[in-house]
């Protein structure tokens, strides 16, 4: 494949890029060289720092340290306007389009030319037609963007960059929102662009796409750039290893599981997101008392929607959920009723759905249970009882500081999470749904939380664990199912599998690695 063309400087060189957000070190001394006229893939797990790196390249963030070179020249990119001037175009995972405007208007926005729109519009209309012919990027310039399919919207994003003279095109998880057919079309387009000497940076976590499309691939892990390969000289297992790394598997004292009867069953469950796209496409599984079922998968493959549907927050649009063998009436479920029938839910995003940050800790500790008798005498809450209850929960879960009157927002992430766990677990649910229990949680708290979850299992509870952290899945699960693209791609016992095998399943390769 194309390789360094002798003397030509690389299209992009990132040297020693470093970026922290508060305590989170998102990019550590990252180096990346992208040659002109190649498709360069960047892979990594969620949170590996890929998007941060590209946001720095596009001027959304400024790096704390490091240097950016475009075509061999050191540049400073402080805004998207400057990135555009240096010939960098970006296609975001969440499109930066104005839905009520037409394609033409979206493309023109910010690059209109002329005092009236009409003059610039003629020129851009011509340019769009040219680009359409050249690269197979046809799209009706007068269509309203909001009414286009997702694939066509993405095409508009690409056109926006090309009209602005982009020589370097960065695509952030471009296939996450596409159907397979649309993804194939996109790949075709990108190959044509490459043949016209455009440089393409393709960010993904899907190894299949890396192998199918890219010339080179760089792997990021935990904010660091760990390796760069010629795609033809590497393999999915090697990449999966590099992505996951040889992590220290957290050890948990965990006896064998003693699964009892089926507590929760999903049959052909279909769940759609807010835009009506099916994110869970016919998932079936059973969860027994006394076991931890881990749901592994790269973020965005339907596990969030699955968890929300099971917890009653999101309506499911097909299939069945059975709790203790009794089907739930899907239409009028709500989280309140689910709590009453013994389903506890630790949501993935505690900020959005788990806690009310301005509330006192004791008030956050009663969310969802505010009608319980324990909190009051008759009409009135008994403030002492509320505080005592919170204090008890905080003690049992070692929430620090043990201050029921402190504002929720003032606790560290780990302690906030322990507070949520305490609230849901102390209520003694029969089924416990846990999403990303240790996201943004410090090491010490992770161990504590893991022990608690295992203790729930040992007490005969049915535990469903959704996590994007493979070590967590390994450390806790008695059984693992893997989701990819909203479907189950495999089921494993933790002692019969390894990170590479799961990584392949997560990447949608259904066959067991040889």
């Amino acid at each position, binding site marked *: 494949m194309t390789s360094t063309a002798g003397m030509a400087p690389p299209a992009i060189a990132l040297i020693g890029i470093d970026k922290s957000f508060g305590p989170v070190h998102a990019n550590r001394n990252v180096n990346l060289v992208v040659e002109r006229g190649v498709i360069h893939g960047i892979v990594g797990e969620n949170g590996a720092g890929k998007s941060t790196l590209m946001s720095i390249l596009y001027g*959304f963030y400024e790096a704390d340290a490091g240097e950016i070179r475009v075509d061999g020249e050191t540049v400073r990119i402080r805004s998207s306007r400057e990135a555009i001037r240096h010939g960098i175009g970006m296609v975001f995972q969440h499109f930066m389009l104005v839905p009520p405007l037409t394609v033409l208007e979206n493309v023109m926005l910010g690059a209109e030319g002329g005092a009236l729109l009409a003059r610039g519009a003629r020129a851009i209309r011509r340019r769009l037609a040219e680009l359409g012919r050249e690269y197979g990027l046809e799209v009706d310039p007068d269509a309203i963007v909001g009414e286009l399919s997702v694939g066509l919207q993405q095409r508009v994003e690409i056109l926006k960059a090309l009209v602005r003279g982009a020589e370097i095109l960065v695509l952030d998880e471009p296939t996450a929102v596409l159907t397979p057919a649309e993804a194939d079309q996109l790949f075709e387009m990108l190959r044509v662009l490459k043949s016209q000497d455009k440089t393409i940076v393709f960010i993904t976590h899907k190894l299949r796409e890396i192998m199918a499309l890219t010339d080179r691939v760089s792997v990021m892990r935990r904010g660091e750039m760990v390796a760069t390969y010629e795609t033809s000289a590497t393999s999915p297992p090697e990449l999966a290893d590099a992505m996951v790394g040889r992590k220290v598997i957290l050890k948990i004292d965990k006896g064998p599981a003693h699964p009892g009867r089926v507590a929760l069953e999903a049959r052909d469950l279909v769940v759609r997101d807010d835009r009506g796209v099916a994110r869970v496409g016919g998932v079936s599984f059973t969860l027994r008392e006394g076991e931890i079922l881990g749901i592994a998968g790269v973020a965005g493959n339907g596990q969030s929607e699955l968890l929300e549907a099971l917890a009653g*927050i999101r309506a499911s649009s097909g299939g069945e959920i059975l709790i203790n063998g009794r089907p739930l009436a899907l239409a009028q479920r709500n989280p309140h009723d689910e709590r009453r029938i013994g389903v506890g839910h630790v949501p993935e995003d505690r900020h959005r*759905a788990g806690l*009310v*940050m301005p*509330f006192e800790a004791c008030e956050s500790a009663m969310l969802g249970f505010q009608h319980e008798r324990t909190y009051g005498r008759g009409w*009135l*809450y008994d403030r002492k009882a509320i505080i005592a209850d919170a204090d008890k929960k905080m003690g049992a879960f070692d929430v620090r500081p043990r201050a029921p009157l402190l504002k929720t927002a003032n606790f560290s992430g780990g302690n906030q999470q322990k507070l949520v766990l305490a609230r849901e677990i102390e209520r003694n649910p029969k089924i416990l749904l846990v999403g990303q229990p240790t996201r943004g949680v410090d090491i010490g708290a992770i161990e504590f939380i893991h022990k608690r979850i295992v203790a729930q299992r040992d007490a005969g509870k049915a535990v469903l664990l959704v996590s994007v952290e493979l070590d967590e899945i390994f450390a806790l699960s008695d059984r693992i199912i893997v989701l990819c693209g909203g479907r189950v791609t495999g089921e494993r016992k933790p002692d019969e599998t390894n990170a590479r095998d799961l990584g392949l399943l997560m990447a949608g390769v259904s066959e067991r690695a040889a």
Partner: protein
Amino acid sequence: MSPIDRTPPRLDRLRIPPVALAAGFAALAGAALILVSGHDPLSAYAEIVRGSLSPESLPDTLAWATPLVGMTLAAALPLRGGMVNLGGDGQLVIGGLVAALAPLVLAGPGPFGAAAGLALAALGGGLYAALAAWGEVRHGVPMLISSLLLSYPAVGVTSYLARFPLRDVATGLPQTLMVPLDARLPVLTGALNAGSLLIAAIALAVVVFDRRTSAGYELRMRGKNARFAGYGGVRLGRQAVGTMFASGAIAGLVGATLVLGSQFRFIDGALLTPAYTWSGLMAALLVGGEPVGAILAALFFAALQTGGFAMQRETSVPRVLTLVLQAIVILFLAMRQGIGRRT
């Protein structure tokens, strides 16, 4: 959140409470305005303090504070749940007129008339406010605007009734007949009457509701995170209508206590001239509807306004200046809050 958002400029890292900062800023701006008028700011401010907090003026301040606290509570309750009731004026006059008529129309002893007047005033104001909430819940008509717009016909119709069909023709003024003596609220001392006790009881009830009941908890949850309130099993539509009913009922009661306690008849315009609704709304906005803070803010505004009379009398600085000071405080805090929001 989104990468384009510019981080706001950091204000001082001094730990001065924002309310004090805002009041100080308003005092400075006010001083400049007083200087423009050719007077001495210090003596003007001294008159405000003396005219509101000295032992002889304190009862006046409390009397003035009664309706202001009431309207503050009416504004604070919806605000606590992230809703805004701009229609206090309409609910106030409905309550006032209903209370003025009830003792005249209903047979029975005076105290019964007064009690009926209070109850019907609360009902009338409450239903009128609930109408705006119902419109939003059922038809999506934004309550923010509809509550305000509903105010105008209420004010117009009550004004018409007081001027024409229900007018006390014996006087030359646009007002209804006097309420019988035994249907008036008993006087406590000087300017204070039982209406103040009623408002104090409502204030206590609102504070207890806010802090100690599950409904109050759910309302606060809605205010902080409406989506989560839905997750937590709160019926949002019913909550909106109920909250607005309570808000309007309090406004109606304020009208009733003014009519039965101090004016003894419905006088066209008399309930609205002091702009209790807007001062109350500002006091509530100042603290995001938190009842105790709102009540304190209302007392502060009441002192400011009562002191304003003294200032105007003694230094001839127009007392409307106090309205300016209030507005500056609220604007300053609105922006200060915005700066602090992302920390």
